[in-house]
């Protein structure tokens, strides 16, 4: 009898171990990669690297929150990158140094930073609201609705980009107030990290402490049930897209100054990085599941991996293979969890 119960415990704990392992397989793999990086270059464990990783993650995180909210409602947003690009071009075109040779608006006065920021957010939110409206009213799959918006936005953005005084040329020579606001640091803390932290807190409150947040998860988990229990599904969907648009606007505003220039190709492909980070962070494509901490984890994982692999001098083509495999693995695990849920 004793032997039997010991065997039972052993079997059980083995099962539990297995489940624990499967559940967290993706993190285990990522931790293994990080361990590998640290072993091959112990210098990776330094304050500078830590700070750089946080700084590089900042804009990505803000964008991931935007698309993350949409993913919770069972959606996706392919127009993210172009929206960020448009916001970057708008902000950049309005914030060039007075003495810069080829200004977009040659006679523009020095604007307070908040004006271009709000304008960038308003434009991004406007186009994003159209996405939300199309998805909510016409029941078009978000993949297609936002694919259309991605292409449309590129057209609009390129027309605006070409309309500046010097013609279609990269926009640079930014006002030092703007550059300092974005890439400067205070008490050793990079401003970008501070902004990302503030946005994280706001998004956490919105997702967890407001009616909008409750509706968001309800709509994402089961739109029919949400509707029956009195949630305005369309309004919730449009709101989450508008919120995403505002975040893209902020992201674009920060991105132009971070890169030091903006053009109509800025932001290209960012949607895929943001979506991948959300998925790895456990924001489920099947809807209704996802946490602020998940988005943070996902973004940090990707930044740490690409930073670390570049740090040890690994060819970027191997990095693509590893990142691609991680995304597929994350989705596979997500699907497994979903099957269990139903």
């Amino acid at each position, binding site marked *: 009898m004793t032997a039997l119960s010991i065997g039972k415990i052993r079997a059980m704990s083995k099962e539990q171990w297995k489940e624990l392992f499967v559940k967290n397989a993706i993190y285990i793999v990522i931790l293994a990669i990080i361990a*590998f990086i640290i*072993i*091959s*270059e112990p*210098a990776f464990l330094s304050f500078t690297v830590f700070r*750089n990783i946080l700084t*590089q993650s900042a804009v990505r995180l803000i964008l991931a929150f935007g698309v993350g909210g949409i993913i919770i409602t069972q959606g996706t947003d392919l127009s993210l990158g172009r929206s960020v690009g448009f916001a970057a071009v708008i902000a950049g075109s309005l914030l060039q140094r007075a003495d810069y040779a080829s200004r977009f608006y040659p006679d523009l006065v020095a604007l307070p930073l908040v004006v271009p920021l709000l304008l960038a957010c308003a434009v991004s939110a406007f186009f994003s609201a159209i996405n939300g409206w199309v998805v909510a009213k016409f029941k078009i799959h978000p993949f297609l609705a936002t694919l259309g918006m991605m292409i449309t936005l590129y057209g609009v953005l390129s027309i605006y980009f070409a309309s500046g005084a*010097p*013609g*279609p*040329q*990269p*926009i*640079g*020579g930014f006002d030092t107030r703007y550059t300092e606001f974005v*890439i400067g640091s205070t008490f050793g803390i990079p401003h970008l990290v501070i902004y990302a932290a503030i946005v994280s807190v706001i998004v956490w409150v919105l997702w967890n402490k407001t009616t909008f947040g409750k509706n968001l998860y309800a709509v994402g988990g089961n739109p029919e049930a949400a509707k029956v229990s009195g949630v305005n599904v369309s309004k919730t969907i449009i709101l989450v897209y508008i919120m995403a648009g505002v975040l893209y606007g902020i992201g674009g505003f920060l*991105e132009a100054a*971070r*890169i*030091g*220039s903006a*053009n109509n*190709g800025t932001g*290209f*492909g960012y949607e895929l990085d943001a979506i991948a980070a959300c998925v790895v962070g456990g924001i489920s494509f099947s809807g209704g599941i996802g946490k602020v901490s998940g988005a943070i984890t996902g973004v940090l994982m990707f930044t740490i991996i*690409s*930073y*670390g692999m*570049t*740090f*040890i*001098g690994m*060819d*970027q083509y191997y990095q693509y293979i590893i990142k691609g495999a991680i995304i597929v693995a994350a989705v596979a695990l997500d699907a497994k969890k979903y099957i269990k849920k139903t």
Partner: protein
Amino acid sequence: MIHKKWLRICMACLLLCALVSCRPAKPELGLFLYNEADPYILEFGRQIIEVAGASFMVHKFDAANSQPIQNEQIESWLRADTGVVIVNPVDRLGAYAVINRLRQLDVPVIFFNREPLPADMALWDEVWYVGAQAAQSGRMQAELVMNLFGNNPEQLNEYDRNGDGRIQTVLLKGEQGHQDAEIRTAEGLKAFEEKGFVIDVLALEVANWNQAQAYDTIGRVLRDHQDAMELVISNNDAMALGAINRLRQAGFFKDNNGNGQVDRADSSWLPVVGIDGLREAEEAIADGFLYGTVKNDSYSMAIAIAELAELIMGTRDSLSVAHTLMDGRYIWIDYLPFVSQQ
């Protein structure tokens, strides 16, 4: 049994890490390319690795045409023992952020292929540029043409097909507003004017550096000017080759005189000149189609870059005679004229 297996896997991992972490004694050099999908840059990168590899451990990174990726690659790879980095910016304005970051870390930088703005070069004194001057390429093209037409503006030779003492010309421009395209075109025309040659511009067409677009463009030009054309000047080889393909279809470059080859003596031959010195262009010259090109001498640039890097690292006392530093920070490499030897 299981324990043993895991033990073995761990040992293997450790061994792998140990192998990867072995760093050779040569100083480390980071090479950052804007886009390896550009064949010219791919080849250029290979040449730099070959030449600089003798005295440096070269780590190459491809930014896949994204300035933010390049910025992050530079930031991620840098470490305390980095001697010097070599950067081919994605966007010439992107150099601003790169220089600012490297100045903070006190890592000297050599730019190549895309010249940063003079104002950005002046941000710090540990910044160099190795490249070619666009003006020279335009002038060399003009010289090749003047040689062909007999070097005497008063009396043009048989290539002035209609004998009117003027050269009826079609110009293919790379890109509207692109610095190199504007300079090459303007300087070439200026060179003709200075020597007293009269150029009638039949058409000035923009084909975006692209072979297929030049093919289409020349098709349109031929409708109006097929019989009048005496010369095609292109801002690069790709467009020149596209033009030749279309011209061949329209009946140019035939062997009417029956000497068994395409050659200048034939009445259907038309001079076309390009810039870059692509391998396909050299073949077209050998086959008698392309009259000539002006070679953007990447191999000499690679040697100059390697020498400059050694000078900065203190492993070399002076540059070789061919590579003089202009204004303390520029090395200009001459273009090389390249024509068929018929």
